[in-house]
């Protein structure tokens, strides 16, 4: 079951430190340009596939199911309200360090969309699944995901 020669140990005596010496500049893409420019104008832009009638928010370049392009379609402006599909309260960051202020993250289905958006909840004490929420916008939007500070109860 185990190797006969028991050289395995959990106490290394010599280590070489290293890392992945890279960082990234990601293109937001063909539809990302439209989506983020919409946020800058405090608009929630979505697109609907003609074949399956699915409305994507955030919008997509193509319907992943019907495999047809959606960028030549009219993008629609959704109303600024949605419902909570699920949520969690987080106490630690991705390193495992405690957060000074725990906060809520939620899956939100914007009214009129068939897909779900992942963002923060703000100004909320006791969120519930099915609760209506609306975006809280930054005063100085700059075409970023955080042009929406979070979603708060309606």
């Amino acid at each position, binding site marked *: 079951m185990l190797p006969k020669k028991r050289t395995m140990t959990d106490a290394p005596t010599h280590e070489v430190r*290293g890392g992945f010496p*890279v960082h990234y*500049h990601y293109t937001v*893409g*063909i539809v990302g340009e439209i989506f983020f420019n919409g946020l800058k104008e405090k608009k929630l832009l979505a697109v609907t596939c003609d074949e399956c009638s699915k409305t994507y928010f955030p919008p997509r370049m193509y319907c992943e199911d019907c495999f047809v392009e959606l960028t030549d379609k009219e993008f629609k402006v959704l109303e600024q309200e949605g419902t909570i599909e699920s949520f969690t309260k987080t106490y630690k960051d991705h390193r495992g360090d405690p957060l000074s202020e725990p906060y809520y993250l939620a899956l939100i289905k914007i009214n009129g969309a068939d897909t779900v958006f992942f963002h923060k909840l703000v100004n909320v004490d006791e969120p519930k699944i099915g609760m209506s929420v609306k975006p809280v916008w930054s005063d100085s939007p700059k075409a970023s995901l955080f042009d929406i500070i979070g979603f708060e109860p309606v």
Partner: protein
Amino acid sequence: MKNRKVGIVSVGLTKFMRRAKETPKELAYYAAKTALDEAGITRRDVDAAIIGSAPDAFDGVHQKHEYLTDGAGGVNLPTMRGYVGGGTGVFSPIQGWYSIASGMHDVVLVTTEEKMSSVLPSAQAAFNTIFDNMIERPLGPNLVWIFALEMRRYMETYGIPKEHIAAVSVKNKGNALDHPSAMLGQKLTIEDVLNSEVLAEPVHLLDISPVADGAVSFVMMSEEKIKEFGISLDDVAWVEGVGWNVDTTMWTNRDLSYPKYVEKAAKQAYTMAGQKDHSPETLRKWLSFAEPYDPFNYKELHHLEGLQLFEKGKAPLAAYEGVTARDGDFPVTPSGGLLGVGNPIAAAAGMKVAEVYLQLTGKAEKRQIPKDVTRGLAQAWGDLMQVGTVIILKGGRVE
């Protein structure tokens, strides 16, 4: 059990670009959708999707296959990514082949993609992490360095003058002028190559291929499905042989002047295709042309020798004398290759397989080889200079 007959029925290529506006999955969509349209089918006809993409560190998305799935048309299908570094672009259609040959699937959509412009400060910084953490990485190696070591060894072993190697850059970058996806078609002279900027002796700037963003897709089908869809054999290239081989990762210990792993992969493919005589003269008559992997000019020559298409040390003179020109006795890299079309790793090798398909179906337009072509080979190479992947295609009506 006998393998089923498998054909490539269409290809789709994006342009290769220095920095595409599209996201990686949007690039994949363009290639995949084009291949489906060219085949006259939709995603609903596809049984399985295969994704080929090289290190996650380029696109900067870990587990790139799950990210690429929707762009590659693989949602809710048996979708899989296979990965052998730079060898991936030829390995992906090999996966398509065995998925169909085995009887598992009938219609497979294969997509190779790479978006190398996302990574900063450079792709070489990402490559730094492929080396051994203890005994190599502290020296800060990158691929240009190790290719310089290999190239020097190759030149020294066979007494190859740099002019003969430079001829490959002139040929391939020239051929790329006729490729609609190409980013670096150039009319050059051997002097231009010799006098270009030194990166790490003996490697100069025009000896190497440019990093790029791009995607290439294929639709592959069983013979039964090709008949069922009424696809003309004029639009089909059959997979006749495949092979792949991986050497040790201890690259320093290999024979740097000769890629034994490419020889092993090639002989596997030739034998599968029924070609038992592996002498260069026979193989150059049997194959109409070849698309060996050319990220560096000397690698095309190195690979031609590993593929048994030229005797050891003899490919450079052949290139210099025009034997491997598009209108030469044995055309090599009529596409323009990685040196000319560009090198979005997995997609670059995908482009080579696509070129073999396009030549065999007479769809290579300005790049069409000016003689009858019945059979072609594409080969890629990668991981830490240790993998060879080979695919042999023949025309749809060739017996």
